């Protein structure tokens, strides 16, 4: 709510500012689009580019296709506003979840910038342009890394940025705060999670062909909505009539989002010259909430340009860093009525399935080519091979009939056309 007031106040101040002159006012409309066709070869394991999108197996035109509209309103040399709306096959269909950017910006001095509204989180190398396929090398941002990133790609709040030349390089430091609610699909379930009191700090240093990035954030979880988890928690809370089996209630409380926090830290480096584009990022999630366990994820990508085509290959990995608990049966269970035993055993099975679906443990490699066809069109072809370890398919939609304890290999072929206009 605080940020709505900030937005309203900033807008009001801007509107009445006497320094806004008609000559300064300038409005630019532009857009971007990706038309994608891809094929995933395992009918039981559905792929989605990130947590926000629907997942599909087999052929799909929707996995990575996207349409974006962008408007920049320059009010004067100090003030401007940016709005960006995208359309993509997301789990949420509310307009609010398609508004990627909507901020007012004030540049009080050459080195300082303040933004308020819906802003990009700036925690990742691609966080400012994740949806603009033309702007990056691959058919989609590295899956193991940017699936997590998608949950806090933007937030409602404000940030302050400081820029400076240091040692013949360019340093940018940004501090932001706000909140965001992610409507997402994780482990095949529709979920809604609010990240409250989200603080972000990032620093980028550019020198010659190099970019170095470090970022950290902290947030509290709240307002967790999930039909499946609600049923599970209700069941767990009602499962201990003998008061001798504490684990169900304990698990139910650990599924609750309240009083849990997440710390995120990330490092990124890019080398980008005439022909080479080498890029790597590593991120670490530290979370004490059982629904989003701690994990580490990262990737490295190497591209080499020959004339208009850049050939590339990437390796990415994501893995939980702590063991996932298992729900155990009670010693008292055989002595309870049979119908109770059956219900309890089913609840234990469902709970252990839900716990397994929070696990991410995957590696992937890809090969691809990016053809700079024209100044406004890039064509891409990419082949991915994903290796999902036992119970490691959190980023995927799994058929409930398959054995999630088994390892799975999935191949994905993608052909994309990316425009800017």
């Amino acid at each position: 709510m605080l940020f709505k007031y900030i937005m309203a106040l900033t807008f009001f101040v801007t509107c009445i500012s006497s320094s806004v002159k008609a000559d300064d006012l300038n409005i630019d409309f532009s857009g971007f689009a990706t038309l994608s066709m891809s094929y995933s070869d395992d009918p039981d394991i559905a792929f989605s580019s990130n947590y926000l999108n629907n997942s599909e197996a087999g052929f799909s035109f929707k996995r990575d296709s996207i349409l974006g509209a962008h408007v920049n309103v320059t009010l004067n040399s100090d003030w401007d506003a940016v709005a960006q709306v995208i359309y993509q096959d997301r789990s949420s269909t509310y307009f609010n979840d398609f508004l990627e950017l909507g901020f007012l910006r004030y540049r009080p001095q050459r080195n300082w910038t303040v933004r308020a509204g819906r802003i990009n989180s700036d925690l990742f190398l691609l966080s400012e342009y994740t949806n603009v396929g033309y702007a990056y090398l691959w058919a989609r941002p590295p899956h193991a890394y940017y699936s997590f990133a998608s949950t806090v790609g933007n937030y409602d709040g404000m940030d302050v940025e400081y820029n400076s030349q240091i040692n013949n390089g360019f340093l940018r430091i940004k501090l932001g705060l706000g909140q965001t609610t992610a409507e997402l699909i994780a482990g095949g379930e529709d979920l809604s999670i609010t990240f409250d009191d989200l603080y972000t700090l990032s620093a980028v240093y550019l020198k010659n062909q190099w970019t170095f990035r470090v970022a950290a954030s902290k947030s509290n979880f709240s307002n967790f909505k999930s039909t499946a988890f609600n049923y599970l928690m209700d069941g767990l809370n009602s499962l201990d009539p003998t008061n001798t089996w504490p684990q169900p209630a304990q698990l139910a409380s650990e599924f609750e989002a309240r009083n849990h926090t997440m710390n995120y830290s990330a490092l990124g480096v890019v080398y980008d010259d005439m022909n080479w584009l080498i890029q790597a990022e590593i991120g670490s999630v530290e979370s004490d909430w059982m629904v989003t366990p701690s994990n580490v994820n990262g990737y490295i990508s190497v591209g080499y340009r020959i004339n208009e085509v850049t050939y590339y290959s990437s390796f990415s990995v994501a893995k939980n860093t702590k063991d996932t608990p298992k729900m155990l049966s009670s010693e008292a269970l055989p002595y309870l009525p049979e119908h109770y035993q059956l219900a309890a055993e089913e609840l234990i099975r469902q709970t252990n399935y839900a716990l397994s679906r929070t696990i991410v443990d995957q590696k992937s490699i890809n090969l691809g080519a990016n053809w700079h066809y024209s100044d406004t069109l890039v064509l891409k072809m990419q082949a991915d091979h994903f290796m999902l370890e036992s119970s490691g398919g959190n980023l995927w939609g799994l058929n409930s009939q398959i054995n999630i304890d088994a390892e799975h290999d999935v191949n994905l072929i993608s052909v994309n056309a990316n425009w800017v206009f």
Partner: protein
Amino acid sequence: MQLIKSIMSLLLLVSSYSYSYSQDLVIVVNKNNSINELSKNEVIDIYMGRYMTFPDGKSAKPLDLPANSKLKSDFYLKLVNQSEQKINAYWARVFFSGRAKPPESVESIDDALNQLKDSEFGIAYIPESKLTDTVKVVYRLNED
């Protein structure tokens, strides 16, 4: 044999012309601009959208020569060692992040000079041979 010599001479002439042409790029501003000199990093800051102003805090309006022209290609190669296609991808990143707008593209060197003549905020790159008394040089790309 004579034909080969003639072709060789012509190729040499063309390559030396293009070499000297590319070596002569200068960064110019309106002669009334208070800035008299820029460093290479300061030119990069303005042309890559890192700063919206000259070092003295006044607005900067960078101008780009036509897309796919040799001069534009030479300019970015010398300035940041990047091809034009990489520059295009760079600007897609910067622009759609809402961070900055790319330099305004002009139709020709004369067009750039005309715009500089009318605006003290403008900055452009031109061959030194095209200098006029309405602009002043603030950086020479062959200085480093």
